[in-house]
């Protein structure tokens, strides 16, 4: 049974947090670390500093997604690189493959560290400094001056503001959670967090993106620089955007029946329109995400799922609305 206590708490103006330690965490150091990431990923990292946080996508030469990364400065010369669940070794191997004698050290710290994500609605009162020292200074997007030497950085999560707390020693996680709970920040379960992810349209590896598609289909455009020069996959991405040849787009949907992952969506006259990538049941309604053929990927189209004769209403994911550049 699914619950919505997390979303209800958020709507009431409260903040919530979830343990997302299953994400991968690499620590990168060396004078060439940022330069390598800038050459291999989609976003412009040329201004990345020790107090920066930014999202970016590693793509291969065909613009297929290796992974979506969150980067946060470690307060010194290095940075933390958060990967998708179980992708840390793949990303580390990828970086190593493309390292040719540069000054870069990459350490997989996933097993030694932990990670929490705090969510809150924009405009609701939430003073970070009240949380016994957890804070991000103004004009910064990450900080390391936090309890337990943790790194705190901000990122997008649908319509919500999110703050990640990366705890360098996972044994300190319970203590960090206690601090948050003492500030009335509600902890939600992994299942609730996953439902929230789906509700907000935040794409996830192997479901909405992976080596089977490019970041444009997953609506990760906010992590792609429009002005940066060569990076791996740039030519393909630029061509897809210029000639508007993006085949599919990630859309949110609501259905009046139970729809499961992998379900094929069709138009009313029977054309194959897309596939469900994530879904959860909310009472009698299913909410989910689907990769939809671009020509049907707008709210004007009502799709169906033929076996149950379900009606599928599409909408743009909140995460895409929050992160995509205004002019596409």
């Amino acid at each position, binding site marked *: 049974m699914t619950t919505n206590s997390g979303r209800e708490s958020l709507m009431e103006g409260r903040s919530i947090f979830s343990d997302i330690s299953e994400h991968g965490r690499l620590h990168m150091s060396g004078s060439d670390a940022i330069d*390598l990431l800038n050459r291999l990923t989609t976003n412009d990292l040329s201004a990345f500093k020790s107090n920066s946080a930014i999202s970016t996508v590693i793509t291969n030469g065909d613009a297929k997604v290796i992974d979506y990364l969150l980067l946060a400065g470690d307060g010194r010369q290095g940075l933390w690189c958060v990967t998708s669940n179980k992708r840390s070794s793949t990303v580390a191997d990828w970086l190593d493959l493309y390292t040719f004698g540069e000054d870069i050290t990459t350490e997989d710290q996933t097993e030694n560290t932990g990670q929490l994500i705090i969510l809150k609605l924009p405009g609701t009162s939430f003073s970070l400094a009240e949380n016994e020292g957890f804070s991000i200074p103004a004009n910064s997007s990450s900080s390391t001056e936090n309890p337990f030497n943790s790194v705190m950085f901000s990122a997008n999560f649908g319509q919500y503001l999110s703050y990640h707390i990366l705890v360098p020693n996972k044994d300190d996680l319970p203590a960090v959670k206690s601090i948050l709970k003492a500030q009335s920040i509600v902890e939600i379960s992994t299942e609730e967090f996953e439902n929230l992810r789906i509700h907000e349209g935040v794409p996830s590896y192997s479901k909405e993106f992976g080596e089977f598609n490019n970041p444009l289909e997953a609506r990760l455009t906010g992590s792609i620089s429009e002005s940066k020069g060569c990076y791996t996959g740039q030519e393909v991405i630029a061509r897809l955007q210029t000639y508007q040849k993006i085949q599919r787009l990630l859309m949110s949907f609501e259905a009046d029946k139970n729809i499961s992952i992998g379900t094929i969506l069709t138009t009313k006259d029977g054309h194959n329109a897309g596939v469900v990538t994530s879904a959860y049941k909310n009472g009698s309604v299913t909410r989910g995400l689907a990769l939809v053929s671009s020509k049907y990927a707008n709210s004007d189209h009502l799709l169906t799922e033929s076996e149950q004769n379900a009606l599928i209403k599409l909408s743009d994911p909140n995460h895409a609305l929050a992160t995509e550049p205004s002019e596409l």
Partner: protein
Amino acid sequence: MSITTEPLTITITENGAKHVRSFMEAEGVASGILRVAVKGGGCSGLTYALDIASEAQEDDKVIQQNGVTLAVDKKSYIFLAGTELDYSGGLNGKGFVFNNPNAKKSCGCGTSFAV
């Protein structure tokens, strides 16, 4: 370091060597070494890198041809074995050109490649 003339080596044409010597003289290192390397990045994943160095490094492969000494690090050598380095000049020339049999594709401008 080892000097090699094995078959799948990296070669430089007479024209390429002439321009390398010209660049070295302009840099004031007439007896320098041309470091030929691969770097990660670029549209297709890998890019070529040329640099003038005063000496080779311990683990470099060193090749001497047409009056020029080339030095290649071991990892780059894997991707460059069999490559011919040439020079394309003139108004529409591309500069140094890598004819690399390992490259399965390259980007539109030719500076990046994939194996």
